[in-house]
């Protein structure tokens, strides 16, 4: 058989290439912004049950590859007593889903899931009340199985009770409806297989990068060769030989091409000749930390203040310890570069993207184009994992700008260099720490200063590249995320002062990358605690336990369980019994996330090659308490991600740049961890079904850099205080110590 299929044929036929959105059997087109309840105080914003009993869950929190598209329905299934396969999930569509905030900060289950649980519990109570009337029974005598309520031999289904009608019930998330007794859960707490995996392993899953709409063109951006460069001229004749070019779009310093085919757009973007002004706005990379230290401080935020540290430090006989830690600039490094589709029609913009914050993106696009937010609809489609605010929103702005310019839907796919070069970065972090110790090795003071960029305004809107380049309206916020978190410490010393010195600027447009601030701050804190333990000649686990709040039983338990899991070798660090080429060591780290939630403790085992400075992490143990576990297999999968991704960041990753722009524009110049470097992973999951669930997408990442640095110290007696721990730095540290 011979199939004739040109791109045009496929588009014409629709079918495989064109996806249409359906909502409760209707076309998505009929649901304009504002037609469906969206307030988080309404049951109807979260849930709808049709006549067949199919439950549609509307979630503002989206699945970024974390498995919440399975876990969130698990929560609803148990609370409503409906089977999982009768639940449909709609995610991140500003016309359909409530604004539950950005999908970040390990809050999808903790906040998003609990709002859904509240909505489901409220809906169930109302359904049972109605069923009791219909069945002439008392509510306590009702049984619910798979969405069918029965009593005294009579039955009525949810579909019959509510089918297609609205609940019109209010929600108060501060006082949630009484949910089920966790003993009655059938799917919560179970390792339910993820709903998306069969399609993902057979090529059936539609990622953002696969999404197409009829009549769509392909766009590519041509970014300036230097940050801050001005576009001087464009030679459109340079691409006259590229077939299918529709338009070269130039607006201010924004430059892009639109073509009939994707390959045409790629070739046009590669070949288009443009001249740009010179620009050297970036600091000398070799002097980054001097630059950070010299940056104007706009605000000092004291994040904890106990006693009087200055007095304790100047106390006669006090021994002081000082250390400075730094953490490199990182990129998100999604395997699939950012992608978006946009369509302008009758003054209204529809934007499809993998944005983790479609409600925020809607506001930003409305501002950028000077149109009312009601005329913008942003729809989430899962893309390649983003690990924070990467380039998805920027691609959405690029696509919208190009779509407006050509009057047809445009898909923008970033290149690898666009992604590495232009996604916002995790800002450089510099931390000074000081402690005082009395003659009896008692820690009398802890002081720290975190040099981190400010957060302007409370909006957390990371500026859009296209708006900036094109000179279009935008709120030019600096938005690195809540990076002050975990600057304060979980340990009880007599005098403590921790300060975030907020910097006026940072070299690259900052944003949040997995465990933002919490990772960098915990790294410095947990390494420095280890330094204190060593100075006090104490076992690092015992030293921590001694200084934790004795009333914080869960913290103490998680640390003890990590030590037990790793068969912790109790003794002060470093080991002094090794002379050979390969030295081994073990290190511990502990974190209570944001000092309010998920507890995690880790033990890393490492091998260090003395001649080369190579670090191999051989085993990584984690004890993890995030309260009620919704899906233990999903949790383990997330822990793998936390550990492995952070090992990569800790051991290898560092953005490279010259005075003009990012120079690490591919995987050769910005390498990440590969299979042969993966350690054995061992977990102890502490399930607490009667506690509220907390997040798990980030906390375990917080302990990785410090556990490794502490293990290296144990092995070779040298402190690593600069992430990444490259062989060069290890070798230099050994020379410095010798």
């Amino acid at each position, binding site marked *: 058989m011979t199939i004739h299929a040109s791109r045009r044929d496929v588009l014409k036929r629709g079918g495989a290439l064109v996806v249409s959105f359906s909502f409760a059997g209707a076309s998505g087109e009929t649901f304009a912004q504002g037609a469906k309840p969206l307030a988080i105080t309404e049951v109807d914003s979260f849930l709808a049950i049709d006549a067949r009993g199919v439950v549609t869950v509307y979630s503002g929190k989206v699945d970024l590859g974390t498995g919440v598209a399975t876990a969130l329905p698990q929560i609803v299934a148990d609370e409503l007593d409906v089977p999982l396969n009768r639940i449909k999930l709609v995610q991140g569509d500003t016309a359909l889903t409530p604004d539950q905030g950005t999908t970040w900060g390990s809050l999808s289950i903790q906040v998003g899931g609990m709002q859904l649980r509240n909505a489901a519990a409220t809906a169930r109570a109302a359904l049972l009340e109605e069923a009791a009337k219909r069945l002439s029974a008392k509510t306590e005598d009702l049984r619910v199985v798979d969405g069918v309520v029965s009593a005294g031999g009579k039955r009525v289904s949810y579909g019959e009770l509510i089918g297609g009608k609205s609940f019109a019930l209010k929600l108060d998330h501060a006082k949630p409806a009484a949910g089920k007794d966790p003993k009655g859960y059938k799917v919560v707490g179970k390792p339910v297989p993820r709903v998306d995996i069969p399609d993902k*392993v057979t090529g059936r899953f539609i990622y953002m990068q696969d999404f197409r709409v009829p009549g769509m063109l392909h766009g590519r951006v041509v970014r300036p060769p230097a940050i801050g460069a001005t576009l001087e001229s464009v030679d459109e004749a340079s691409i006259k030989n590229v077939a299918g070019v529709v338009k070269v779009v130039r607006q201010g310093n924004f430059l892009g091409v639109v073509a009939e085919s994707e390959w045409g757009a790629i070739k046009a973007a590669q070949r288009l000749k443009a001249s740009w002004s010179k620009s050297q706005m970036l600091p000398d990379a070799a002097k980054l930390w001097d630059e950070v230290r010299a940056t104007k401080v706009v605000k000092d935020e004291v994040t904890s203040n106990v006693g009087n540290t200055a007095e304790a430090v100047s106390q006669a006989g006090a021994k002081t310890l000082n250390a400075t830690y730094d953490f490199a600039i990182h990129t998100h490094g999604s*395997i699939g570069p950012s992608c978006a589709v946009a369509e302008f029609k009758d003054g209204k913009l529809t934007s499809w993207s993998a944005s983790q914050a479609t409600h925020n993106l809607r506001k930003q696009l409305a501002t950028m184009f000077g149109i009312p937010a009601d005329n913008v609809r942003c729809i989430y489609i899962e893309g390649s994992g983003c690990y924070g605010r990467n380039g998805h929103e920027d691609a959405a702005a690029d696509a919208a700008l190009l779509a407006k310019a050509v009057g047809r839907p445009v898909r923008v796919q970033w290149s690898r260099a666009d992604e590495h070069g232009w996604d916002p970065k995790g800002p450089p972090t510099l931390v000074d720490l000081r402690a005082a110790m009395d003659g009896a090795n008692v820690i009398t003071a802890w002081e720290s200063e975190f040099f981190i960029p400010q957060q302007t305004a409370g909006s957390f809107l990371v500026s859009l590249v296209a708006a900036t380049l094109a000179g279009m309206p935008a709120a030019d916020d600096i938005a690195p995320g809540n990076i002050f978190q975990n600057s304060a410490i979980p340990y009880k010393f007599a005098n403590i002062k921790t300060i975030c010195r907020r910097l006026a600027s940072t070299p690259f447009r900052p944003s949040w990358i997995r465990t933002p601030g919490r990772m960098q701050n915990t790294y410095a804190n947990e390494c420095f605690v280890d330094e204190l333990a060593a100075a006090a000649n104490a076992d690092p686990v015992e030293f921590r336990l001694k200084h934790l709040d004795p009333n914080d039983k869960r913290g103490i338990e998680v640390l003890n369980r990590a030590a037990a899991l790793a068969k912790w070798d109790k003794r002060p660090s470093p080991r002094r019994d090794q002379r050979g080429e390969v030295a081994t060591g073990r290190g511990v780290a502990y974190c209570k996330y944001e000092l309010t939630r998920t507890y995690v403790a880790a033990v890393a085992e490492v091998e260090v090659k003395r001649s080369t400075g190579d670090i191999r992490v051989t085993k990584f143990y984690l004890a993890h308490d995030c309260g009620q576990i919704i899906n233990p297999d999903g949790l383990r999968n997330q822990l793998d991600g936390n550990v492995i991704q952070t090992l990569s960041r800790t051991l290898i990753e560092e953005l490279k740049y010259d005075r003009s722009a990012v120079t690490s524009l591919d995987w050769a110049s910005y390498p990440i961890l590969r299979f042969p470097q993966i350690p054995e992973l061992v977990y102890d999951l502490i399930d607490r079904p009667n506690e509220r669930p907390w997040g798990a997408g980030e906390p375990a990442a917080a302990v990785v850099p410090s556990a490794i640095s502490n293990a290296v110290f144990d092995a070779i007696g040298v402190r690593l205080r600069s992430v990444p721990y490259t062989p060069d730095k290890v070798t230099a540290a050994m020379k410095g110590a010798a």
Partner: protein
Amino acid sequence: MAQRKSLNVNGKSVQITIDDPDMPLLYALRDNLALHGPRFGCGLAQCGACTVHVDGKAVRSCVTPLSSLTAQQKVVTLEGLGTPQRLHPVQRAFIEEQAVQCGYCINGMIMESAAFLTRTKNPTEAQVKDALANNLCRCGTHARIVKAVMRAAGA
């Protein structure tokens, strides 16, 4: 200049219309044939997300010009390897091990592993890791991917 190009994809002869004979195979598969298994990751043969089989060998479709392929060479994508109803053992193992996070790299992991297992029957874990050393995953699914490949090897 639009021209016709014949290919053999997933067991069928297909003819596509292209402007550039040197267009990489990836774009023919994704844009002309609407296949979603092979993915664009880097365009530089560095990450492996675009991997397909050509005559049974794993190749990076993002750097394979159409002009290098004949109509007889058998191109197989993730869709052709197995379907939800008739899963390839490697696909089945990835489901059983739940070896996916975002899944964007998984096409490459499965295609690379499937080709590897046809030439290495009882691999060690270290051999699997070496075979996948040039496939990148950002989510940190590596440990499960290795388990899935070992499971498929034992199937």
